[in-house]
Structure formats: C-alpha cells, structure tokens
C-alpha cells in the first residue's frame, strides 16, 4: 500500500525538507522525477483537460445547433470558445504529446531517464498549475474571453480580468514548455545508447527533437507578446494602442510568429507516432526514413516563415501577401511528402489492423484533407474569402483533431501495453475508432460548406435567413458521436485497468528499443543499456535477412545483443525531490499575486526562490 506522506528515512542535512522516500502512493507521484511517472502524470492531466475542453466544444455545438438560440449569452459564449481553444492547444495536445515524449524518448534512445529529471518534474507541475490558474479564473471574475489568439486591442480593452489570467497562465505554461524543450533536446542529443547514431533514432525521437527546437525558438516570441499584453492590462502601458501611436498589428505578428510553429509543435509528435505504428503493423521499415526526417526538419525551419498566412486580410499589402503565400506553398511540399512515405510503408506490407493501426491510417486519411484545405489557404485571394470563417475551423480541426488527436489515440492504444502492462480491449477500441471517425467527419466536414457559404467564426449565433441551419445541426450531431466515442475509450480504460498485469515485453512484434524491456519497464528502464547496431534495432534482434527479400526469425538464443546479462549494475537513478513542486507552487502564487495583490506576489516569489535555492543545494542522487 501507499507509504504515508512523512518520509521516515534518508533525511539529509543542508536541505529545507527531508528527502522524500515514498515509492508508491500520493507523495511518490508528487515528488517523482522518474520520466515514466511524469509522462503518466502529463497524460492523465492532459486527458482530464481533454474532457473539459471537449465539454466546452459540446456547449458551443449546442448553442450553434439552431439559429437564434440563447442557450449561452454572448459573454459566456466568448469565454467558452476562448477556453476551448486555450485548453485544446496548451492543456491537451501539447501536454499529451509531452506525455509520449517524456515516457518514450529515454526508452527509445536507450537512456535511464531524461538529462534533468528534476527540471522535468518542474515542467509538469508548472503546466498543471498553469492549467489550474487559467481555469480558476471562472470563479475569480470571469474566464479569458478574447479568443485563444487574444488579439489586441480587444483583449486589452476588455474590462474583465480574463485576459490577464490568459497572459499569466500562458506565461507559466510557456516556462514549463521551454524548460522541457531544453531538457528533452539535451536528452536526445547526449544520452543515446551506445551505437545509436542520430540516424538510427526512431522517427518519433527525430520529430520530438524538431519540436523541442521549435518550442525553444518560438516560445520566447509569445513570451514577449504576453508580457506586453500583461503590462497593457495591468500597468496601463500602450504597446498596442493606436491612439498612443502604437500598432495593434504588432500583437498579431508576434502571436503568429509563435503560433505557426506552434501548429507544427502540435502535429509533429503525432506524425512521429504514426511513423512508429505503421511500420510495426506493415512489418516493414518506414519507407524513406531519411526523407521523413529531413522533411520534418524542413518543416521546422520553414514553419517560422509562414506566419502572415494567418493575416492576409490585415492589409499588409500585396508584396507581403505574395511572399507569405509562396512560403506557404513551399511548406506544403515537405508536409505532403510524408503522406507518400506512409503509403510507401504500407505498400507490399503484411498489414494487420489492430486499433493503433486503424488510428494511424485514420490520421493519414484525415490529414490529407486538412493538408489539401491548407493548400487552398496558400491561394491568397481564396483565403480573402475563407479567412475567419468555419472553413478555417474545418481545416485546422482536420489537422489537429483528425491529425494530432487521432495520432495520439493511436499512440495510446499502441503503447498502453508497454506503459501499463495491459492491452486495451480491441473490440471496444475498434468501435471507438469507427465512431470517432464518422463523428469527426460529420462534425467538421460540414464546416467547410458552412464557411464557404458565409458563416464567420466566433459568432455566438446566426440568423435563420443565412441558410446555415442544416449543416450546423449535422455538425452538432457529429460532435455528440465524438463524445460517445471518447466515453467508450474511458470505459475501455476502466475495464482494462482491472485486468491483471501480464504483458510480454513486445506484444506487437515492434521495431524500437522500448520493446526490449519489460512491460511496464522497471524504474531503471533497462537492466543493461542495449548497444545499437541498426535502425529498428529491436526488429533486427528478432529477424534476419538470409537472402535479398527473404526475412526469417533469428533462431532462439541467437539475438544480436552483446551486452552482458548481469542485471542492473552501476545504475544511478536520480532521487525524488520536493523542490520542483515547491518552486512551481511559488510561481502559482506569484501569478495570483500579479492579478490581485503585491503581498501575495511577494509570498509567491519567496516560496519560488526558496524552492529553487534548496533545489540547487540538493544533490541529484543520494
């Protein structure tokens, strides 16, 4: 059973608090620095926010199901669509990707943990507190109501505190992501197992690496913008005030210069997941591994040069619009190439279709649609019609739901046995997939039509005369099908977690290192760090090509492993620590302090600094 909160042994002089020792129970999760536990924390928290953000989406769809409805007043509607966006982007897809990255990267590259385990814990707690902070605004005078994009001057002029919470909350989440980006990038670059060169890394590790650089370079930009917004709201500065001679378009440039790389931050991890699932269930290596990797890197670079395609209607002039139209066309190429690589992977494979494979194929099918509607945005004059309509809403949900969320669900079904030692129910999983696929297309497919037929975004209602009723109703019905599918997933999880843990190390006959260790993996990941000889190392330990095109299993006992069988010597695992959560708590108090009271801010600053100071004095391993 759970050991009780008070640590009994291991106290050490020099620290403010005695070193935590709990290995199970509540305090073990609070003080953990184990990347696997932190990954699970990220996943559970992000999924909880997914339920909340999804409920907000259902409220939006209920309000829009019929014309001239007053289920939600404009002020509440504005809060709900804003929170839906903030939640899904910052509190769901980003941390859900972080869950996979945290859990899998050390296992995939053959490491015992991330480079900075306590920083990893700090990232999680800051993310959790950022989410709590933003959501607490509902009870403290109103939630953010200026859109997840928070355009100035509307966000500044709004009299409520909502957008102040938005600015501070996103700053906190931004610190979490920045810290995590550096942590993961250092881990990938420095902690790979012997023999694992960069080009022997799984594609998921590559995509994660690209994402960490995108985060590290794009978050500072939004940080600047958020500070300016915060200063405008809280201290009466005039960064976006045209009357004072400033230019409100500055916000849009800063926001989208972050916001577009952010889109790739959201989609690349899912692309990485799909690039792991497809080869496993095609029983073939990824087609054109290097092309996929380089196109991912190319997307990372070009992603910083397309932001004005969110702003074609702002009036920047034909030259700017032309330049960014062309750069948007260019980024379509490396994105499109990946589709062909995934098709090539499946080509001539030995295809089976368990749930993870269905979600991976669903990802490819839906992402094609999102990509093609994206190409129509690069046709700038066409975008003059489409911008700020439901056509855009349709487009990015095909990318971020049909794409990212489908990929992430595929990843959950795929790695569930590895993480929890139990396989999710296949029958329920398949019903989940088909229901979600149909519901998704019913929800977002009609939005293409709605947008082209004149439905702007962010409107709380629409008059019957616009002739938009039918497709809005269809869309609402689809949204509830998605909700039902998610409910099935939750039931599946609840049922699965009751089963006994009895899972092989490698239930899918997979290809990457994490399948070499037990399911779930031991705290130290690998008894012996594997030595890597090839891309798809795990596969090459199981199969050998005897003649060109002829692959046979390696005879039992003849695996290519050359590490000694002696278990777990020389393992140094970082010890758990209170200080990441203490420092994060200080940041949370500081956040409330900036909104409400300088005294509270002072308390928060002291707690934060105490946490960081004690942390600095605490050795990482005892």
């Amino acid at each position, binding site marked *: 059973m759970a050991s009780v909160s008070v640590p009994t042994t291991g106290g050490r002089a020099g620290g403010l608090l005695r070193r935590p020792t709990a290995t199970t129970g509540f305090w073990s999760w609070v003080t953990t620095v184990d990347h696997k536990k932190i990954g699970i924390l990220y996943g559970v928290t992000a999924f909880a926010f997914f339920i909340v953000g999804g409920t907000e989406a259902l409220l939006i769809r209920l309000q829009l199901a019929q014309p001239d409805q007053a289920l939600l007043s404009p002020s509440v509607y*504005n809060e709900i669509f804003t929170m839906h966006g903030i939640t899904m982007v910052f509190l769901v897809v980003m941390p859900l990707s972080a869950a996979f990255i945290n859990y899998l990267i050390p296992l995939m590259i053959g490491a015992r943990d991330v480079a900075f385990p306590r920083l990893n814990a700090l990232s999680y707690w800051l993310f959790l507190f950022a989410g709590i902070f933003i959501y607490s605004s509902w009870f403290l005078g109103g939630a953010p109501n200026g859109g997840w994009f928070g*355009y100035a001057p*509307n966000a500044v*002029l709004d009299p409520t505190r909502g957008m102040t919470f938005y600015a501070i909350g996103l700053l906190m989440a931004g610190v979490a992501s920045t810290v995590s980006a550096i942590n993961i990038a250092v881990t990938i670059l420095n902690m790979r197992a012997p023999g694992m060169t960069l080009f022997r890394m799984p594609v998921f590790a590559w995509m994660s690496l690209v994402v960490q650089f995108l985060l590290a370079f794009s978050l500072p930009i939004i940080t600047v913008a958020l500070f300016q917004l915060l200063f405008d709201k809280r201290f009466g500065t005039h960064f976006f005030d*045209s*009357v004072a*001679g400033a*230019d*409100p*378009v500055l916000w849009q440039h800063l926001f989208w210069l972050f916001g577009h790389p952010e889109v790739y931050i959201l989609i690349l991890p899912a692309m990485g997941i799909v690039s792991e699932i497809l080869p496993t269930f095609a029983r*073939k*290596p990824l*087609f*054109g591994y290097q*092309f996929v990797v380089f196109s991912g890197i190319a997307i990372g670079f070009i992603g910083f040069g397309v932001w004005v395609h969110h702003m074609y*209607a*702002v009036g920047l002039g*034909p030259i700017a619009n032309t330049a960014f*139209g*062309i750069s948007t*066309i260019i980024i*379509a*190429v490396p994105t499109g*190439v990946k*589709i*062909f690589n995934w*098709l*090539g992977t499946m*080509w001539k*494979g*030995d*295809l089976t279709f368990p749930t993870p494979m269905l979600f991976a194929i669903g990802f490819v*099918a839906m992402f*094609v*649609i999102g990509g*093609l509607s994206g190409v*129509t945005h*690069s046709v*700038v*004059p*066409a975008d*003059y019609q*489409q911008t*700020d*309509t439901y056509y855009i809403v349709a487009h990015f949900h095909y990318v971020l739901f049909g794409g990212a969320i489908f990929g992430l669900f595929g990843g959950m079904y795929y790695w569930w046995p590895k993480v929890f030692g139990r396989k999710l129910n296949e029958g329920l999983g398949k019903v989940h997939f088909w229901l979600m696929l149909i519901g998704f297309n019913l929800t977002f497919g009609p939005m293409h*039509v709605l947008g*082209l037929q*004149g*439905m*702007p*975004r962010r*409107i709380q*209602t629409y*008059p019957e005369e*616009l*002739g938009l009723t039918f497709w809005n109703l269809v869309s609402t019905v689809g949204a509830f099908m998605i909700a039902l599918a998610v409910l099935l997933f939750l039931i599946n999880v609840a049922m699965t977690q009751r089963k006994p843990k009895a899972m092989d190390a490698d239930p899918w006959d997979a290809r990457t290192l994490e399948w070499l260790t037990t399911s779930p993996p031991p705290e130290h990941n690998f008894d012996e760090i594997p030595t890597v000889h090839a891309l798809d190392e795990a596969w090459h330990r199981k199969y050998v*090509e005897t003649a*060109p095109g002829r*692959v*046979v299993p390696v005879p039992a006992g003849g695996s290519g492993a050359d590490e000694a069988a002696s278990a777990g010597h020389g393992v140094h695992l970082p010890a758990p620590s209170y200080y990441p959560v203490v420092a994060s708590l200080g940041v949370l108090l500081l956040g409330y302090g900036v909104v409400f009271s300088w005294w509270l801010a002072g308390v928060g600053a002291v707690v934060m600094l105490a946490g960081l100071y004690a942390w600095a004095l605490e050795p990482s391993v005892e």
Partner: protein
Amino acid sequence: MRTRTRLILGLAALAASAAACAPNAQQDSLNPQGPYADKIYDLFVPVFWIAVGVFVVVEGLLLFIALRYRRRKGRAAEIPPQIHGNNRLEIGWTILPALILAGVAVPTVTTIFDLAREPQGDVLEVNVLAHQWWWEFDYPQEGVNTANELHIPTGRPVYLTLCAVGLGYEDQPTPSVCQPGPPDGAIPAAIGDGVIHSFWVPELAGTQDVVPGQANTLTLQADAPGRYSGQCKEFCGLSHAYMKFAVVAHTPEDYDAWLRGQQADAVMPESGSLAATGMDVFLGQCIACHAVQGLEDANGNPVVANGGPNLTHFASRECFAGCWLQNDDPEELAAWLDNPAAVKQGSWMPDYGLTPDEIDAVVAYLKGLT
C-alpha cells in the same frame, strides 16, 4: 459487397448534391455577384478541383493498399521484404507536388496584385468606419452619411477606405474622418480607442480587416441590383455576432434618386403629433450621440454625431443596430430603445429609462425619418 459499394456511392452523391445546392444561403462566397468576387471564385474553383483530384488519388491509393496488402485469413503470416525506400520515387513525389503548386502560385500572385490595384476611372469612394458594433458609411463627395446599409450603383467600382473607430471618436467637420493621419504618422485622437473589425460581403469581394490606426482599402462592385449580405468577421467583443450590414446595389438611376433623398434634410414632424413629442424626447436624450441633419438643439446648434449612427433618414433603412434588427417591425425598435444591452449585449447605447409612452413617441418620430 456490391450492394454496399452502391450504397456508399449513393450516399456520397446525396451528400455532394446537398452540399452543392444551398438555395437559401444568403452570404455565399460561392455565389459571386461582381467582378472582384468573380476573380477570387475563378481562382478558387480550379484549385478546389485540383485538390479534389489529389484527394481522390491519395485516399484511393490508401484504401487500395490497405485492402490489397492486408493479411489474408488462413494464410501464414509471411514477413514482407524490408524495403527501406527508393530515392527516385522520393524525388519524383517531391517534385510533382512542387510543380502542381508552382502552377497554382502563378495565378495566385497575379490575382493578389490585381485585387490590390486602386480602381481607375469612374469610381465611387466611400469611407467605412467600423464601430462596436455597427458600420458607418460616409460618402465624402456626396455629403451623405448613413449606417449599416452601403448603397452603391451597379456596374461601377466602389473604392472603400476602412478604419476602426471607438469611444472618444467625434464626427469631424472635414469630409473624410478616415484619413490615416498627418504625414508624420500620428493618428488623429478623434479616431478613439477602436478594436479590430473585418469587412466582408462575400458575394461582392473578399475580406478586409479594419484596423485601428491604419486606413485599409477594398474595391467591390455589383453587377446586378440587389441586397448583398455582409458581416463583421474579426472577433470584436461581446456583440461580434450582431455586427452585420448589407450592400444595396441600385441601377445608376435609382442610386441617384437614393442619393438625392439622403442629401435632403430630415423630415420635421407635424407639431402636436406623437412624432413631435418623440422629437422632443430625442432632443433631450438621443442627440448626445446621434446626428439628424436639419435638426437643431436647444441652443440652435446643428445636431452632430458623437459615436452613434446618423439617423437623418433612419426610416429609409431596412435594418438597424448592426443590421441585427429589422425596421419593418416596430416592436424590435421599441425593444431596442427600452434596453439596448438586452438586445445586443455590451451595446454602448445607454438605457435612458424611457417610459413606454416616450418609447412610442420616439418610435413614431424615427419611423417618420424617411
């Protein structure tokens, strides 16, 4: 299997036809009604069909591969050859989409510049001022100022200069209040604290954002007389959904007649009538924000606009309050006067606490402003 295929095809055809014909969509970007909207439509349609072609090929391939290479029942699982890639194929499928996209880029760029060009010749110039949450249309040459309905002649390009205005904005004596400011770049304080709006009448032109401190331009033109629905597209606060407008296109003759009507002073109600009582209430309260041309306040000064719509010819408009309310229904006007914020949340028009009798009188007065 065959019946299933037929069912799927039938459903697809049904969905396609339902999507294609939306007889009642009033604000339809797929129904261009003038040369500027045509240019966009003519560009979008081929790109759309190219996208459909790519969609069919890629999704078809995906489906084909999934079915063709699935593991058959009863057959032993064979390990397929481990194909790692094919450089020629890779280069091919990189270059092919790049070429298609380059083909799309050429007309895209020419159309961008085409649409940005200032129209020459016989052009009607109108200033569009976006308020929270209604539209002001100012005709500087013609000396006409109206709200929420932009009247234009058919067959003539209309060159709009758009700017966002907010609280603190006052009507200027100069013909154009929408100028980008003195040459040194300073913004006239009279523009006030506006937020960003976006002007969109999809059947006549593409979108143009209206940004505080920046005079944007847009050209539109209608081929045939009619009423074209438009709406604010950029999220602009509480009543964003209620910030609609209409472009009313007339034949040139009808337009001239409309213009003459608008240039005239407001109709004065008969003394002793209900409308005259309404005018007194109006002079007591409403002129704080609203102008009526020809009306004088208690000190004999002309009534000028101060943040609210010019109501000189209010009754000639089909809609008001950001075209959210219809003028043919006196109940809507009465409800609006009773409590504006209850109709449009956040409305800057105050609730003056008018009694029902006063409201009736003001309605009578406004209905007389033809």
